[in-house]
């Protein structure tokens, strides 16, 4: 199973963090710091797999963001590269030509999309279209609520 998924900017700022195991706040900060150092130091075109503590780290750079996740020892590293690719495609599908700013200003949407794709460290849905439909319908439900809330009461 995946232990965590982090999105780091090129300047080392955290853009998204998802933890699939219980970790204390202090430990989280430590892991983030170490991942930032490790991943940002890798030269371009180097191997995307690293070893850290007892986890396998798979990272991939997309434009200005580093997607970094920690795997257990039974997990398939090559498949995880595909998982990261799929998540980027889902973000792209939702935002349309996604860039880092989209993820900064709409971070909660990025989390919602992630929750339709990965749950408990495992892949939930392998079809892009199904995830897209789920997001749309949830949005509709939310908008209906908001419209209702913002309508004047008369």
């Amino acid at each position: 199973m995946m232990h965590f998924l982090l999105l780091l900017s090129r300047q080392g700022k955290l853009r998204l963090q998802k933890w699939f195991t219980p970790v204390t706040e202090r430990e989280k900060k430590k892991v983030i710091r170490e991942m930032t150092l490790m991943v940002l130091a890798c030269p371009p075109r180097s191997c995307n797999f690293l070893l850290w503590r007892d986890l396998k780290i798979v990272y991939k750079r997309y434009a200005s963001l580093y997607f970094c996740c920690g795997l257990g020892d039974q997990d398939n590293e090559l498949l995880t590269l595909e998982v990261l690719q799929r998540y980027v495609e889902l973000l792209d599908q939702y935002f349309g030509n996604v860039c880092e700013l989209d993820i900064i200003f709409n971070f909660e949407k990025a989390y919602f999309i992630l929750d339709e794709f990965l749950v408990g460290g495992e892949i939930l849905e392998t079809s892009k279209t199904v995830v897209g439909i789920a997001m749309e319908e949830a949005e509709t439900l939310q908008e209906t609520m908001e419209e209702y809330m913002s309508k004047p009461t008369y």
Partner: protein
Amino acid sequence: MSPSVRLQEMIRVIRGARTQGEERGVIQRECAAIRAQFRQADNGTRSHNLAKLLYVHMLGYPAHFGQMECVRLIASPRYNEKRVGYLGAMMLLDEKQDASLLITNSIKNDLSHSSQYVQSLALCTLACMGSAEMCRDLAPEIDRLLRASNSYIKKKAALCAVHMVRKVPELGELFTPAARSLLSEKNHGVLHGAVVLITELCERNPDTLEQFRKAVPELVLMMKGLVMSGYSPEHNVAGISDPFLQVRILRLLRILGRNNDTASDAMNDLLAQVATNTDSSKTAGSAVLYETVLTVMDIKSESGLRVLAVNILGRFLLNNDRNIRYISMTSLQKIVQTDHNAVQRHRGTIVDCLKDQDASVKRRALELSLALVSAVNIRSLMKELLLFLSSCPPELRAHTTSGIFNAAERYAPSQRWHIDTILHVLTTAGGDVRDETVPNLIQLITTATELHCYTVHKLYRALITDISVQSLVQVACWCIGEYGDLLLRGECEETEPVQVTEDDVLDALETVLQSHMSSPATRGFALTATMKLSTRITHNVDRIRSIVSIYGSCIDVELQQRAVEYNALFKKYDHMRAAVLERMPVIDKSSPGHTNGESAGGTIKELEPAKLTQEIVLPQEPSNQVSEENDCSKLWYFMTDIFLFVSIAPPSVTVYEKNGVTLKLQTDRQTDTGMTVTLTATNSTDGDITGLTLQAAVPKSVQLQMKAPSGDVIPAHGLGQVTQTVLLNNPNKVGLHSDTVQIDSFPSTAW
């Protein structure tokens, strides 16, 4: 103004802050506003305030005051508030927080909500941070959802069940029947969840594993369907149909087929089909092939299939993509023990990967190369490894050196090759070798008796070039001390001899002694070596004497002690000096004294066993106690801090010879930890010696028992002798103090 714009406005303001201090100020103001809003009654902006707080939390600021707000929002009937509330719960609460228990009831209610999106929120949160208690509480709900709901909920319930089984393994029994029936679903999401759940159940419970073995044919069919199916736009990734599901099925098959012939047979054809038909030009295909190879190697597959798998790995090894090469080497590492010959065929490519730029690839290539060393390829492979060592990244150096030493020890084709290899490593990376390298090398050198001249020449040349590598300098000093006479002789068969004078050699040793680069241990080696040379050179003994006396007032206590003792050897016990500083015998590798050096770090005490020189400490005897007269003498014989050295042939050694009185020590072995020492005193003077008493002192770990002497009068003219037996009990054979070694150096038969 729509509330969500306020969130984005806040983000914009925070990003606009030019300094860390400014940012902190903005955030403090915002947090204060948020806290105020939380205290107010429901005003429709709660979800946005919580979202703002979550953003602030992601920047690293404390946000624990939002925990109760999460609980409140989760309980709200509005979907948008629930959504943010659950997100907040996943980010701010974990099972260690007390507040997490408060949401259990909300989750329970939401699991039976009419809207599937609300249900999914609850399921997702439970699967993310559900504690063991919550899991036990809600397991029956999850079981119900696994059976009777739509596929959107079923797949989420499956992964929720996976989380529960991980937290509370006993719940596995509850979910097993539902898991079984999920395999007949058509929806890929549900199937994937089912396969993950079954994998988890089988890994934890061998009975469940037995049960699910019956499902192998079903899984095989499922997999076949995926591999052979035509293009399916919904699940296609680079020409592979749903690689995520394929990989999970292969992983489950691996677990089911392990150690089981029937199950392995049933999947043989399928695995061959996948291995042959999968297109590996893109990562997705390679991922599936990788998992296939892992499965083939782990189950009881037939040999043809294994060969196919190893060939796939060999193909991966030649791939341009670094990731694929890395994966290939990882897998080859797993099978190098069982399929050694197959992996050997790819040795050339693996060794080439040592030269790759990437650190991860280098590390894998190193591990694999070390595993491939054999008696046949040792020479060529070692050349490559030594080349690698000269350019390898610092974090790999220690591992490389120890790997090289292990390989050299096991497969060295000749002693000279072995010594050359170790010296090469010390010159290249002497700072990264383990501490026991020095005693190991010294032991090796003593055994290679024909190579002493060659070795001392090589080490002398290395020493005058560079004295910064401590391990090399220590060995060089030891060799020069021991075999300095060979060096000075100026002739050597194996290598070009050096023409050095005694002064040159002493200069070299003194440089080491005085250099601030030398560690205390190294200086100890140099001092002892200088001392040993006093019996091997002819002209400059005075120079040695003066060096030794200077160090008698050295600040370093160890050096000072040595210098004082050597001084004593020069002054009072000059007659013993030659015997004490004589050539050492071959050190037996299995002796405890040898292993003593391997036990802990490289301080002087632990390294001393390798030296095994005879150093008898005879304290300054008060002059009134030692008289020139024959009728009363007392000998104080301290055994602390000695390395007593006895050559193999004669089992007795003369330890005192003065004024006609000779004291001999003879050893007999008795038990594993005890021994008998017989002290024999003879008198070659004209008069009888009366009133003879012998005393001995030993360190705390050794117990001493002195039997009564045969008499206290030694007759004159060597006509008789007095014997006294001493029983030594040394229960702690391996100890930190050198005293232990002293017992060891008695004839090998004695211990």
